[in-house]
């Protein structure tokens, strides 16, 4: 079946040094007529400058409301192999760690039931299997789940949580991102698999403010590791950086956003003024280590631009301890989701609801007091509400 189509436009994208997705599709097409039709339709898109996909009915596996994205070619006669071309979202491992053995198993099953094409990984974090038919879904699920793998989220549900590599390979991680992500994923299995929320809810966990998993920009709940206490300085290592040619004044001291550092042979930090932005630690990793009391900042609300414009997550809980079994964290998340679920209109993300209802009603519902850390600056216009409870003070 393979090589059915001439693809002069796509062939252009096999040139050049960067690995080519066209080559990947062609590789799959050698074995899979689905992949070959995908190639053909894509060539057509390149010619006509438009896509040929459509939604269809909702598809999935028994007892689950998500994990599969139904996709159909709008040209099924021309490209019958992709008349159905659903994606299956397999919940990735925390931190995207794999063994060759596990990955090969995943490939074997996918070659059997699907197009042989994958996304490693989807933007939310799932291991995405790209292209199969409705009738294969149950088999795929049985094969994977029996081997210990489950589906990820889709639809108006908890989405597959994801995280940075954290303590697995990073000296800056203040929290166990991998374990938190694993634990929360387990905790919210029902919410993940059976969409019953107003809209999607994403959780991402980063070990520090560097935020290598874009938690603050792409998660309804962003858990970001941080610390209390002084930055630990190894002056001998500071000296080595200087000796190696680093301009500590220009690169570190002057770039410190709070101006709390000074350097004249020894490096000093006025820790009370430090905002824990991570710049100095990141650029002088051998010399500086974060403070000893570890915890996380919880931020809420980020999302893509539609409907109200892009949002970045907002600081809600400036500092919370997050140690196993994460009881406080879980409770807090349940409170957040509970309020949102009660309050949102359909297709309203939690950030949108907080904005519409006012931060106060959210904070009161989850039992968090007002704190200056939650805002960049206080309100400017003198229009503000009072509740009866404020008068009793």
């Amino acid at each position, binding site marked *: 079946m393979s090589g059915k189509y001439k693809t002069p*436009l796509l062939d*252009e994208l096999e040139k050049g*040094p*960067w690995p080519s*997705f*066209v080559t*990947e*599709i062609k590789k799959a097409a050698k074995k899979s007529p689905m992949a070959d039709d995908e190639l053909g339709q*894509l060539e057509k*898109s*390149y010619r006509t*400058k438009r*896509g040929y*996909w459509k*939604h269809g009915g909702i598809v999935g596996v028994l007892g689950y409301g998500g994990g599969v994205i139904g*996709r159909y070619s709008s040209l099924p006669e021309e490209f019958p192999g992709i008349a159905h*071309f659903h*994606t299956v979202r397999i919940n*990735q*491992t*925390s931190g*995207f*760690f794999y*063994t060759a*053995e596990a*990955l*090969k198993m995943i*490939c074997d099953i996918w070659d059997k039931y699907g197009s042989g*094409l*994958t996304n*490693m*990984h989807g*933007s939310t974090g799932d291991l995405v299997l*790209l292209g199969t038919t409705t009738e294969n879904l149950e088999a795929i699920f*049985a094969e994977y*789940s029996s081997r*210990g*793998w*489950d589906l990820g989220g889709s639809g108006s549900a908890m989405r597959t949580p994801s995280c940075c*590599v954290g*303590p697995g*390979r990073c*000296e800056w991680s203040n929290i166990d991102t991998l374990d938190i992500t*694993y634990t929360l994923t*387990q905790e919210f299995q029902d919410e993940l698999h059976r969409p019953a929320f107003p809209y999607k809810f994403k959780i991402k966990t980063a070990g520090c*403010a560097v*935020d290598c*998993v874009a938690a603050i920009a792409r998660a309804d709940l962003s858990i970001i590791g941080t610390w209390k206490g002084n930055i630990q300085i190894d002056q001998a290592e500071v000296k080595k950086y200087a000796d190696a040619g680093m301009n500590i004044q*220009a*690169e570190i001291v002057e770039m410190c956003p709070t101006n709390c550092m000074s350097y004249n042979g020894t490096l000093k930090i006025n820790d009370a003024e430090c905002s824990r*932005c*991570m710049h100095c630690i990141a650029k002088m990793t*051998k010399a500086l280590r974060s403070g000893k009391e570890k915890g996380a900042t919880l931020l809420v609300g980020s999302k*893509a*631009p*539609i*409907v109200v414009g892009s949002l*970045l997550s907002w600081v809600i809980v400036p500092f919370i301890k997050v140690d196993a079994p994460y009881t406080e964290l879980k409770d807090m998340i349940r409170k957040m989701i509970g309020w949102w679920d009660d309050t949102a*209109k359909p*297709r309203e993300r939690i950030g949108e609801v907080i904005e519409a209802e006012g931060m106060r009603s959210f904070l009161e519902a989850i039992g968090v007091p007002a704190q200056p850390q939650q805002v960049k600056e206080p309100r400017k216009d003198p229009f503000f509400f009072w509740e009866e409870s404020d008068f009793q003070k």
Partner: protein
Amino acid sequence: MALPKRQTDIGPPKYDQFIPPVIKKNYGKWKYHEVLTGGTMVHVAESGDTLHTVRVASPRILSTETIRDICDMAERYCEGYLRFTTRNNVEFLVSDKSKMEPLLKELKEKKYSVGGIGPRISNIVHTQGWVHCHSACTDASGMVKAIMDDVYDYFTTKELPNKVRLAVACCVNMCGAVHCSDIAVVAVHRKVPTINHELVTKVCEIPTTVASCPTSAIRPNPKEKTVTINEEKCMYCGNCFTVCPPIDIHKPDEDGVAIVVGGKIGSLRTSPKFSKLAIPFFYNEPPRWPKVVAAVRNILETYAKNAKKHERVGEWIERIGWESFFKLTGIEFTFQHIDDFTFARDTFRTSAAFKY
């Protein structure tokens, strides 16, 4: 052939089954790392143990054939352990330093691209495009390939003032991190959608459709059981199409992409920033979008030439001012650049101090 017995709600397997012994031993006890080359680094634990990483570019769309090849290498050089990054690169986790050389050699022979570590460009976060999404207004994978071919040196070897994060979103749903990227491409429509009223009546929920429009351009037409669009108000976001496909937003000859710049995610130095509009439009020019590629390179190189060490694109622009950004890059400033969405007000200049 009987299927194995399915299980439900088991979640993913626990990560600890997939991490190499050196990580297990030094979990959470890493001390520092050193970037060795554009694509290799070593992490050193408090115990003195080391873990070498080799990062390899991935087109993200991977065939099982390629995955197997990668797995084979992981078995040969990493006791089978590997991971993927949050930007979809592959990382070989090398516990035995002596395996580095043969691994790098095999990668080179097989034309894998090693890079993306340190102050460089890494993989472009992108999504489905024409490959798989019904909403796509451009192709993502093709544009990524074209751009990365062009700026390839900045992935493998050349240094920049700091990391530069690129992204491509194939529609304004922005499944990537376009809204907070140093330089990013987002596909945009420019014409009001056309409505297939008959189908609307059949398949769409009118209130949801009306509510989907960010500018309240859609009004219900209860008599005909369909909706109408106020052309003056529509800014072609396509959100109506997502909830009601018979409202067709696709206009191949007028669709294309915009380029946004200056976003960032980390809280280092300055707060996370949204990307801002740099170039409002280029036509889709598959297969290689030459104008888009040239524009990305222009911005990248203007940044590389002018920014201070450690400054991200957005930090550089904010230091020099947007008026200087447009001057230095030679990009034309148009009415499209001036915000007219909800928070427009906050983007208007309220100071008598600015540069010419």
